[in-house]
C-alpha cells in the first residue's frame, strides 16, 4: 500500500525532507521502522515516536495507511 509519512524536527534533519510517499508491504509499525532504518541509517541512533492518525502508537500497532508521522522528543514551552 502507498503511505505518506511526515518528519519533524531532528528527524526531518536526518531524512532531509518533511514528507514523502512510500510503497509499504509490511503490516505493523515495527515493520515500517525497519524499512525506514534501512533507508535512513542515521535514524537508528535517534529517539522518536510514531503517530498514526495523530495518535501515538506502539511497535505492535497495525499500519492502516492513514496519516503517519515520526516525532522526535517534544519540547513545547
Amino acid at each position, binding site marked *: 500500500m502507498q503511505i505518506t509519512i511526515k518528519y*519533524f524536527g531532528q528527524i526531518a534533519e536526518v531524512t532531509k525532507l518533511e514528507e514523502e510517499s512510500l510503497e509499504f508491504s509490511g503490516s505493523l509499525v515495527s515493520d515500517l521502522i525497519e524499512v525506514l532504518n534501512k533507508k535512513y541509517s542515521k535514524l537508528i541512533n535517534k529517539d522518536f515516536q510514531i*503517530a498514526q492518525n495523530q495518535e501515538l502508537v506502539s511497535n505492535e500497532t497495525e499500519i492502516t495507511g492513514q496519516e503517519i508521522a515520526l516525532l522526535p522528543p*517534544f*519540547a*513545547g*514551552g
Partner: protein
Amino acid sequence: MKDKKPKSVFKEGAITSDFIGNSIYKHQTKTSIGAHNIFLGQVRADEIDGKTVSAIEYTAYEDMANQKSHDIRESAFEKFELTCMHIYHSLGTVKAGEICLFVFVSSPRRKVVFEALEFIVEAIKADVPVFGKEIFEDESHQWKKNT
C-alpha cells in the same frame, strides 16, 4: 474522525507582554471570576559546553498539536470548575528572554486555578508535539527535549 478542526494555539514568533496584558484586560468584563492564574514559558539563555543559547526555533506537527491542546482543554474543563482557559504557543524564532508559552486559567475561586494550571502545563509539555531547535550565538544548534 474529527469533524472540525480545533482552534489553533499557535502564534508566529514571541508572545508579547502587550498581548498578555490585553488578554488580562479582556477578562475584566467577566465579573464572576475571582482568580486568574497565568503560566509563561520564557526562553532561557542556557550555557551548554561554553556556548550560549540565543534563541529557540519552534516547529510543530500543527494538526496533532491543536487536536491535543483541544483534548487537554476539554479534560481541564471536565476536571476543574473553570470560567475560561487559553493556551498560546509560539512557532518560529523566539529569542532568549522572550515568551513562547502563555497559559491562562480563570475561575470564581482560587483553589481550583492552581491545580488546573499545573495540570494543563504538564499535559502540554508531555502530549503536544512541538519541537525546539536551540540556536547558539555561533549559529550552531542542538535539539531541545522536555524533562
